[in-house]
């Protein structure tokens, strides 16, 4: 039995199988890219939203929060925070964080954002909320 299956056969299956499945993955990825414009709402991306995404990145928000479920699990999901708090509520929350934290509790740092920056962050989060995520998260609590 085992004599019939040689090392060179195993090697050929490895190379052949890898190439086949990688090409299949590329084909699926290509198909995804033809469908994405209807789902990722790219037509709506403004310079303000782009600025919001940059602020999201350079302040390492993903180090505590999740966005569409990806990130750290220390603080709430923000893909739908606009549903939970509304635009004004979100801005007010970010602005109200005490500089020295809250005794005994987890607290978000105070980033001292300007009004323009806050508007950009909210525009970005609103954009993320508009993405077609197959109805995820299950409810508004994220």
């Amino acid at each position, binding site marked *: 039995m085992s004599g019939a299956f040689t090392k060179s056969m195993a090697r050929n299956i490895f190379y052949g199988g890898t190439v086949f499945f990688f090409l299949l993955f590329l084909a699926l990825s290509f198909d995804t890219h033809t469908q994405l414009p209807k789902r990722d709402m790219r037509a709506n991306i403004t310079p303000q939203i782009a600025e919001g995404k940059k602020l999201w990145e350079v302040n390492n928000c993903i180090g505590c929060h999740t966005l569409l479920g990806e990130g750290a699990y220390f603080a709430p999901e923000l893909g739908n925070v606009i549903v939970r708090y509304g635009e004004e509520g979100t801005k007010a929350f970010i602005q109200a964080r005490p500089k020295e934290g809250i005794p005994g509790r987890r607290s978000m740092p105070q980033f001292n954002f300007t009004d323009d920056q806050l508007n950009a962050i909210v525009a970005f989060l609103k954009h993320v909320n508009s993405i077609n995520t197959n109805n995820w998260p299950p*409810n508004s609590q994220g």
Partner: protein
Amino acid sequence: MQYKSQAVAKPYFIAAIGLFVGQILFGLILGLQYVLGDFLFPAIPFNVARMVHTNLLIVWLLFGFMGGAYYMIPEESETELFSPKLALILFWTFLVAGALTIVGYLLVPYATLAEMTGNNLVETMGREFLEQPLPTKLGIVVVALGFLFNLTMTMLKGKKTAISMVLMIGLWGLAVFFLFSFYNPVNVVLDKFFWWWTVHLWVEGVWELILGSFLAFVLIKTTGVDREVIEKWLYVIVTLTLITGIIGTGHHYFWIGTPEYWQWWGSIFSALEPIPFFAMTVFAFNMVNRRRREHPNKAAVLWALGTGVMAFLGAGVWGFLHTLAPVNYYTHGTQITAAHGHMAFYGAYAMVNLMMISYAMPILRGRAANSNKSQVLEMWSFWLMTVAIVFITLFLTAAGILQVWLQRASDTPLPFMVAQDKIAIFYWMREWAGVFFLIGLIVYIVSFFVGGDEKETA
């Protein structure tokens, strides 16, 4: 040691262990911040400690992979390393770049660090695990290319075995897929889509080739089983890895804006991802049972068996637990994910590096194996760390199930922080398990310094 240039592996292994200690210390800080929210705030906020924890993990694993490869390739190729000098230059480059990055995270606010390091030129920072400043990312590319050049040249002038071919494919894949970390479009869906081409295709793709290759190498050396048999197994394992793992990327494409059909592709193929890990476990036990010699390094064999089992449990079983789309709808981005991440990384990648270090380090220090006393301590550290990670995983799983129940599956879902407060007991238990892990790690380090003067008869 058969080839004197293998000695370049030694500083890589030492650095790997040093950074591993840092990773665990920051892990304990994070665990405490989960229950004492203001611990070290605002000096070291959670996000900073987490970056240090995860980045140290990645860097020490890379040091381990590089050390292992520098040790293995000359022996497999039956020739000296192309350039030991280049290997040492790259070692210091990588160590200094890594240290500066960590210091940067700790001393400078992240936004300032981004500004200082040219993030405005090419925006790559602020994405999970790829937080490194641009110069560090470029440094990783330079080090990886120099390292691959060195090893490829070594292999070209020597023997090309299946084990070293698989390792080189894994390492080249590692370098190629890292390049996606430079692609960060403003469209967040595209950003996430290609982010996984680095993250998933590393840990559930090419890294498994490195794992399989190291495991095969150590099993040949310690069991004396025929190379033909072991290499055939290796090909079967890495075939299973890539035919499940590549399309398995789809399990990250359920809820990030990508089409529904990924729920089918992702669920089915990633449900098969435990198979290669199971094969690795069977492989390791089989080869050890069929051993033709009693290698004096019992500790290395223990790590080899352990990495198979723990990778299967952590990556395979705990991965499967939440990989089917209807389940993942509820568990996505919860403590279940964290539970899986901890056991998978320890079982697959921490343990395989510790196995390689365990096998190679005594030889690099001029003996076939450590003294019995030293090996006993090392095996104690194996059990302490492994049992600790099992408990960390179980407590996080319990926390995750409750989190899903309270916050996701309930008819009256609770806000995130309310749910977190209710599951705090499990975070405390996880922290205690983490303390045991640290004790295990200390025992591990002590094992390098005891009984060295005793002569092992091999």
